């Protein structure tokens, strides 16, 4: 300012400066007075004090009073109340906001001035409690406070909330906001809300707008309308039938997805077994524990990379494969190769191994389950429409399963190792005579099968508990899939796993989880009676 003032006229410059300062001061004073007019400390204290009650209804009224007040801090108060971070000094009159409630000692700020207020704990700060009803109420208040800012998502949520809630009182304002609305999605939502209201008022024409709408509130309102009689009820029933037909298709699609995702887990768990069992004829009871090792590897990598669950999960894919594969090679070298051709003893030895591995994990880590975090991109669901949503973690596992299958198939089909493995499967003696080192093939095959089990463990860590007993739950299912699909056949395993998954999920809602499993088991036993080789018979001759 000084520099820019004309020439060297310092007098004038100084005067200008003075007036500017004065203006600033005045402005500050004006701001201060408006702030104190908004809400002074006593009023703020009174607003917060009203929250200090045991009754949730009184608390709701107090929160509403805050939302209606002129307090500049109100959004932050309501947010802190919603987060369970607003509280009062237990033996005093101060109000605090907890800035971090993760430990046992909490850093605090003063709720009125937002100034730093040292630290406190549960012994010294009484946090204001909220319940579900109040939580919903608070979310509404905060949403309507931020609605003024005109965010499209907030408007969409508000419009969504109006479906079924339009009444004679607010119908005009809803119509008006629909006229003014620019966003197509919000307009459509408001249109549905208005049409539902019109239909409830007896306007049969409005029902056409609702045809094919999958919102459950629309369906529920139409069910009420259809229960009446007259032309309107018949019309409502027709629209309702259309909706139900559409929903039924989406329900079937959803069941199919559930089945495929359950099947993909079975396939992942079984495919490693299909390789070892098929090629070497080894009944590996420790297969489940190899899955568990893959899952624990994921957990370990996550521990090493805190705060990056996504990266850790991606690294766990090769990591789980290598660690479980190494265990597999070790088991093959130290136990299985000495028990060649003695299936019963192999079974017992590997069963013993499975117990040893379980106890090893219990001793090394703990008998408690370990929590493997899911990255953001595997949480929540892909909402296709109101009737169909696919959970992302299941979708991820399904995709992963298909990738693993494709990779394994390509390995068997196009590589030297694959050729040798197939040769040994079909005729061990002949393959050896042709110069294939069967012992080496055995070792690599077992390592490969174990590695794939490790991959299954990585995938399962996203769906279920990671604990010492993780593998036990899958070993029987895996054998079931392998036997059903045909021993040593990759395609058989895929088809068998997927179809058992779908059958199970179709049955589950009807008969319950336990009976569904029994029915599947009995079905497979009967099928094996009829067709001992499984769905796809092995092509080679047993040597």
């Amino acid at each position, binding site marked *: 300012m000084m520099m820019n003032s004309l020439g060297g006229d310092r007098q004038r410059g100084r005067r200008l400066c003075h007036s500017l300062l004065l203006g600033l001061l005045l402005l500050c004073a004006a701001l201060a007075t408006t702030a104190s007019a908004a809400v002074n400390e006593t009023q703020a204290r009174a607003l917060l004090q009203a929250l200090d009650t045991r009754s949730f209804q009184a608390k709701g009224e107090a929160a509403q009073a805050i939302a209606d007040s002129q307090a500049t801090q109100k959004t932050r108060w309501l947010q802190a109340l919603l987060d369970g971070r607003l509280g009062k000094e237990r033996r005093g009159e101060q109000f605090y906001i907890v800035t971090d409630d993760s430990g046992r000692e909490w850093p605090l700020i003063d709720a009125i001035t937002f100034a730093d207020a040292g630290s406190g704990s549960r012994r010294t700060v009484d*946090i204001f409690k*909220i319940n*579900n009803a109040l939580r919903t109420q608070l979310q509404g208040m905060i949403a309507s406070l931020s609605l003024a800012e005109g965010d499209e998502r907030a408007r969409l949520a508000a419009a969504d909330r109006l479906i079924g809630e339009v009444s004679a009182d607010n119908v005009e304002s809803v119509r008006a906001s629909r006229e003014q609305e620019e966003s197509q999605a919000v307009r459509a939502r408001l249109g549905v809300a208005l049409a539902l209201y019109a239909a409830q008022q007896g306007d049969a024409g409005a029902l056409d707008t609702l045809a094919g709408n999958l919102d459950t509130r629309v369906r529920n309102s139409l069910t009420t309308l259809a229960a009446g009689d007259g032309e309107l009820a018949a019309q409502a029933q027709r629209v309702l039938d259309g909706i139900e037909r559409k929903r039924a298709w989406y329900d079937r699609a959803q069941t199919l997805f559930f089945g495929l995702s359950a099947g993909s*887990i079975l396939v992942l768990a079984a495919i490693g077994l299909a390789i070892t069992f098929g090629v070497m004829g080894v009944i590996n009871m420790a297969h489940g524990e190899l899955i568990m090792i893959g899952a624990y590897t994921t957990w370990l990598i996550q521990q090493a990379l805190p705060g990056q669950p996504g990266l850790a999960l991606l690294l766990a894919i090769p990591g789980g494969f290598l660690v479980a594969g190494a265990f597999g090679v070790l088991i093959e070298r130290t136990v299985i190769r000495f028990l060649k051709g003695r299936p019963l003893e192999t079974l017992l030895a590997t069963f013993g191994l499975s117990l040893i591995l379980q106890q090893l994990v219990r001793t090394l880590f703990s008998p408690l*389950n370990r*929590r493997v975090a899911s990255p953001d991109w595997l949480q929540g669901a892909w909402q296709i429409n109101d009737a169909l949503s696919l*959970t992302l973690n299941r979708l991820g596992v399904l995709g992963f399963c298909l990738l693993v299958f494709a990779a394994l198939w390509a390995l068997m089909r196009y590589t030297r190792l694959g050729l040798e493995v197939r040769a040994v499967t079909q005729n061990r003696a002949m393959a050896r005579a042709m110069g294939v080192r069967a012992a080496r093939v055995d070792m690599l095959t077992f390592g490969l099968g174990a590695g794939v089990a490790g991959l299954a463990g990585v995938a399962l860590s996203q*769906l279920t*508990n990671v604990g010492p007993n993780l593998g036990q739950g899958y070993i029987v299912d895996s054998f079931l899939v392998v036997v059903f699909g045909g021993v040593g056949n990759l395609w058989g395993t895929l088809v068998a796993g997927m179809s058992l998954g779908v059958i199970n999920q179709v049955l589950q809602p009807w008969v*319950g989880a336990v009976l569904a499993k029994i029915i599947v088991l009995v079905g497979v036993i009967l099928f094996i009676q009829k067709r001992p080789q499984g769905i796809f018979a092995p092509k080679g001759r047993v040597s």
Partner: protein
Amino acid sequence: MTTTALRKLIATSALATTLAGLSAPVLAADDGPIRVGILHSLSGTMAISESTLKDEMLTLIDQQNKAGGLLGRQLEPVVMDPASDWSLYAEQARTLLTGDKRVDVIFGNWTSASRKAVLPVVEELNGLLFYPVQYEGEESSENIFYTGAAPNQQAIPAVDYLMGQGVERWALLGTDYVYPRTTNKILEAYLKENGVADDDIMVNYTPFGFSDWQSIVSRVKDFGSQGKKTAVVSTINGDANVPFYNELANQGIKASDIPVVAFSVGEQELTGIDTAPLVGHLAAWNYFMSVDSDANYDFIDAWVAYTGNKDAVVNDPMEAHYIGFNMWLKAVEEAGTTDVDAVKDAIIGVTVPNLSGGAATMMPNHHITKPVMIGEIQDDGQFSVVWQTPTTVAGDAWSDYLPASKNLISDWRAPLRCGKLDVERMVCEDGAGTN
């Protein structure tokens, strides 16, 4: 059993107590340590829940020894590991009650199956067992003290609370074994009594360790979107809860749409779950770690100091052992001996402070008085208590809502001493001398 038989029974049991009273001073002459048996699994599937209870008992015994022991004698813990194997519980209970290190009291068990296995052993050998977990009721033993909740101290108040919140439709989900099945039977009878239609109740059971929740959760979602306010009552036990809650979160079921109230999910179980998407789902217990009382803060501080882990959590069954242990101490002091019969008589009516700022009293039916609390899950893995009974509730051994047991009561005081008394016919179906 006729009334004459009943009278004869009362007479013999009165005689038995007198004899026991006479022999008591002889036993008290022993001045070795007083042995306390701890019968909790430290390995196998139940180790998750039970191993903490063993540690807690060791802490409590240690504290008591530092405070001068009991009757001028030291307490000595005898720790067993039944390895989550129900028959091993019975075997080890026998060892505790007959072996070289014969104990004066046992604190132990978690699942109902293991308690049912131990019951005949403690009755035969006249032992004392303190059982700290919420259970299905429909049982009363002269030798067992139930310091966990009976259904009327947990399930029924929780349903009442939800009815008060406007819930009209109920999905009862449980693990497939005796506790969930009995509890759900009681709840179904109770709901129907309160005018809930058959169509508005859905019941589903899943095996232990179940993880494929997608189609069941999706069915609950459908069940809950029929226009009536719906709630899930969960008696799902053990680690099946983690995938269950994850599936709820992934399918976008929020507590404001379909609240889930659980009877077997506490602070310990929540340590394995990201609770941010679960905020607002409920649990019913008689104690929460977040309860505001100085006794509770002291208890937590002692536990954190013992475990050396500042994130260590405490839960409801731990409070039950805390109460049970203190009740036993007080009863032994009152009786002046650790003799089982004397302690059994002395403990009825004993009142000790609980951790939520109130007091617990041992009732004549061997159950205790407890406050019932409903807590909502918070994003830090703790519960915030949103509702609480104004007074404590006495445990009811035999449910009033099941036709088979609604006339039954249990009263182990002399001269009645009957665990299964039909008050309508005044017939004792299970009392002293009968099993």
